[in-house]
């Protein structure tokens, strides 16, 4: 055991691995109990409307409608329950097995919820305040 403990080739990878796993669970603890932190970016050339890496939702300004935010909020809840690593593990697994984007189970669920009318709160990091998201309202 002491040979492993004093070997930097063991200690450094283990430190990184354990830190990632620890942060993964810490992100879930936050996500289960607090609102997502939304970061708006201006990337018109990017094909991605938004991406959720709990506890953050990064969304393109052009896509900042209720539907997009609700879609990402569903991913936020999925990651809170399954942890981000659990979510991305299943997501990548389905994708690597050849499932098309729209048929991925997490995406299918998020698409079906986009217009369900759920009201929720987000924390807008740029404005540094909480915002209530309601259907048919563009985020400010």
């Amino acid at each position: 055991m002491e040979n492993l403990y004093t070997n930097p080739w063991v200690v450094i990878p283990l430190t990184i691995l354990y830190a990632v796993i620890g942060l993964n669970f810490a992100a879930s603890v936050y996500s289960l109990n607090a609102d997502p932190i939304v970061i708006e970016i201006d990337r018109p050339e990017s094909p991605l409307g938004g991406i959720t890496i709990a506890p953050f939702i990064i969304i393109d300004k052009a896509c900042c409608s209720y539907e997009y935010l609700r879609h990402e909020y569903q991913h936020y809840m999925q990651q809170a329950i399954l942890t981000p690593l659990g979510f991305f593990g299943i997501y990548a697994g389905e994708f690597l097995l050849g499932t098309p984007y729209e048929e991925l189970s997490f995406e299918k669920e998020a698409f079906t919820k986009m217009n369900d009318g759920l009201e929720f709160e987000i924390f807008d990091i740029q404005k540094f305040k909480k915002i209530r998201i309601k259907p048919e309202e563009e985020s400010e």
Partner: protein
Amino acid sequence: MEVLYQNKLLTIALTIAFALLAGNFGSSVYMLNAPPVVVRADLSDFKAAYGVSPAAFQSWFTIHLNTGVGFYQTIRHEYQHYIQSALLTPFGAAIGYQWQHFVLGKDYYDNWFEIDARRVAHDGLNFKVFVWNTKELKLIMPGQYYYDLGVNE
């Protein structure tokens, strides 16, 4: 998923479980890269694993020394348990230890974790500890007696 997310009982249970796991892995990150915290205290009323009153015991990132205990071998033995916990994570080491005890029925001297710690008690390793009582970093070396470690003058 939102039904689960809005379920208070599930959210509280998951929060506790995930917080413990985050603490477990976070502790290992500390333990892999920093010295144990040694606490000197009166352990006469304390019961450790196997129900024994220990001269010293390791728990999480701390090593507790009973009053008057100061052999290098004792501290080195506990430091080996610290290394085991760092590599396997505190939960992993605790589960492994109790598995040996309760599932495999090993007594104290046959428990793999204790065998490993006894094996190195005289290996002469120099290592550092942070002494909580005196708030100092101390190098532990073989051939020294640390009866005054953590004892405030």
